[in-house]
């Protein structure tokens, strides 16, 4: 009889050292088995590309209900959102959420975002040295999302800390989660009380309230939609833009390829997302006993999706540790896949493509100092990235 019990590992996914540099852990788990049980996190992690992609598609077996986060409080708080529901309820919630966020809704924004990104990059190239996370990776998404939702005043100032906290609290009940719950609560409170008049006329946020007033979306949903835009869309985009800057600084030959052939911009972003996905881990729950590549996950067990482990699986990508913009890994796992695939990926692409395009036109090489990383639960982002010198194009 074959033993279908997954191997057990004493790795803690949320150990400080693991969150700062998860790559050796991902490789060890991936080589151990496609499914590994981690008692420290009470979760069965999926470690290889095929198992992850199949699970993301199979929402009937790998449910999002009461499952996304690694502590019961956050799963309770997310109940009733599209993030934490399954079809058919999910289908309607998702449609409401994406109505103003889908690529077709965002087409009109491209020129504005391109102009903002180019102006920022131009200013930084002229400056010559700067802290790239604040000056570019945080500056652009905060401005884009603030304008999109129509934020003014206090809310705008709070977007960064609220967005970070909303991701941190998805982790287990460790110190980071405990410290961030009050901040995530501020965001929730603000979104529960915000009214149309608080948001700029003509903004998408104002449009969501107009839709609620018309009866196009259920009563009291506008605030929750804005909550999801902010909770999911700020921290992850900041991480991705920071990763673009760091990876092009580390691989000037790859920046040169994009400079020679600007049609590589989307491929380059796909490779950045494959190489360094902005999210560390995300949860699901098995609705029944299920076997993944011959290893059994019991019904009701929590399942952890390791995006980075799958994105570096040599069974799927040749030479996965090489950063190669021409690879164009269109099927990377960083945005998830299937019914819960990142709802904001269209906006993320607009922002990231604008940054890569501006860098490729204006920069030949970036000389950077050591990147600073701090432990975080879910978002994997550079904290500080000093650019010491810009060699302009």
């Amino acid at each position, binding site marked *: 009889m074959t033993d279908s019990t997954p191997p057990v590992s004493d790795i803690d996914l949320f150990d400080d050292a693991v969150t700062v540099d998860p790559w050796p852990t991902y490789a060890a788990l991936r080589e151990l088995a496609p499914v590994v049980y981690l008692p420290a996190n009470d979760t069965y992690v999926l470690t290889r590309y095929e198992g992850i992609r199949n699970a993301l598609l199979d929402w009937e077996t790998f449910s999002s209900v009461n499952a996304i986060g690694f502590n019961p409080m956050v799963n309770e708080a997310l109940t009733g959102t599209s993030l934490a529901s399954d079809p058919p309820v999910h289908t309607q919630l998702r449609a409401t959420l*994406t109505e103003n966020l*889908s*690529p*077709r809704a965002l*087409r009109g924004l491209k020129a504005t975002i391109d102009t903002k990104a180019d102006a920022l990059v131009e200013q930084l190239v002229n400056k010559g040295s700067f802290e790239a996370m604040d000056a570019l990776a945080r500056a652009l998404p905060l401005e884009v999302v603030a304008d999109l939702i129509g934020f003014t005043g206090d809310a705008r100032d709070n977007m960064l800390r609220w967005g970070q906290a909303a991701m941190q609290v998805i982790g287990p009940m460790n110190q980071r989660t405990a410290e961030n719950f009050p901040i995530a609560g501020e965001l929730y409170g603000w979104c529960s009380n915000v009214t149309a008049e608080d948001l700029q006329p003509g903004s998408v946020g104002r449009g969501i309230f107009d839709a609620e007033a018309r009866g196009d979306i259920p009563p009291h949903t506008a605030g929750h939609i804005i909550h999801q835009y902010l909770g999911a869309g700020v921290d992850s985009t900041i991480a991705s833009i920071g990763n673009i800057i760091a990876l092009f600084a580390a691989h000037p030959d790859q920046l040169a390829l994009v400079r020679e052939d600007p049609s590589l911009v989307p491929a380059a972003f796909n490779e950045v997302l494959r190489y360094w996905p902005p999210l560390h881990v995300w949860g699901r729950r098995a609705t029944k006993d299920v076997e993944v590549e011959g290893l059994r996950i019991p019904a009701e067990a929590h399942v952890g999706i390791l995006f980075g482990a799958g994105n570096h699986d040599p069974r799927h990508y040749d030479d996965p540790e090489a950063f190669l913009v021409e690879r164009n890994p269109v*099927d990377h796992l960083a945005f998830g*896949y299937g019914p819960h*695939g990142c709802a904001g*990926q269209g906006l993320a692409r607009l922002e990231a493509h604008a940054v890569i395009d501006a860098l490729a036109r204006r920069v030949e090489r970036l000389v950077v100092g050591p990147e600073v990383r701090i432990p975080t639960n879910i978002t994997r982002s550079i904290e500080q990235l000093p650019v010491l010198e810009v060699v302009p194009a």
Partner: protein
Amino acid sequence: MRIVLDRERCEGHGLCEEAAPDLMHLDDDGELVLDREEVSDDDPAAAARANGAVRVCPVAALRIA
């Protein structure tokens, strides 16, 4: 082979159009139009593009029947 679109799931990301521009396109409203649903097995290049379009859809709104 036949390309099948789950219209409720499609959000108009448009990555399929880049993979198979001769088989499908986004119209002026950003809605996906399948220009060719049937792809002959005798046309392996088109079949490969159809499979590529299915593969790249980020929300799994396309499949091959």
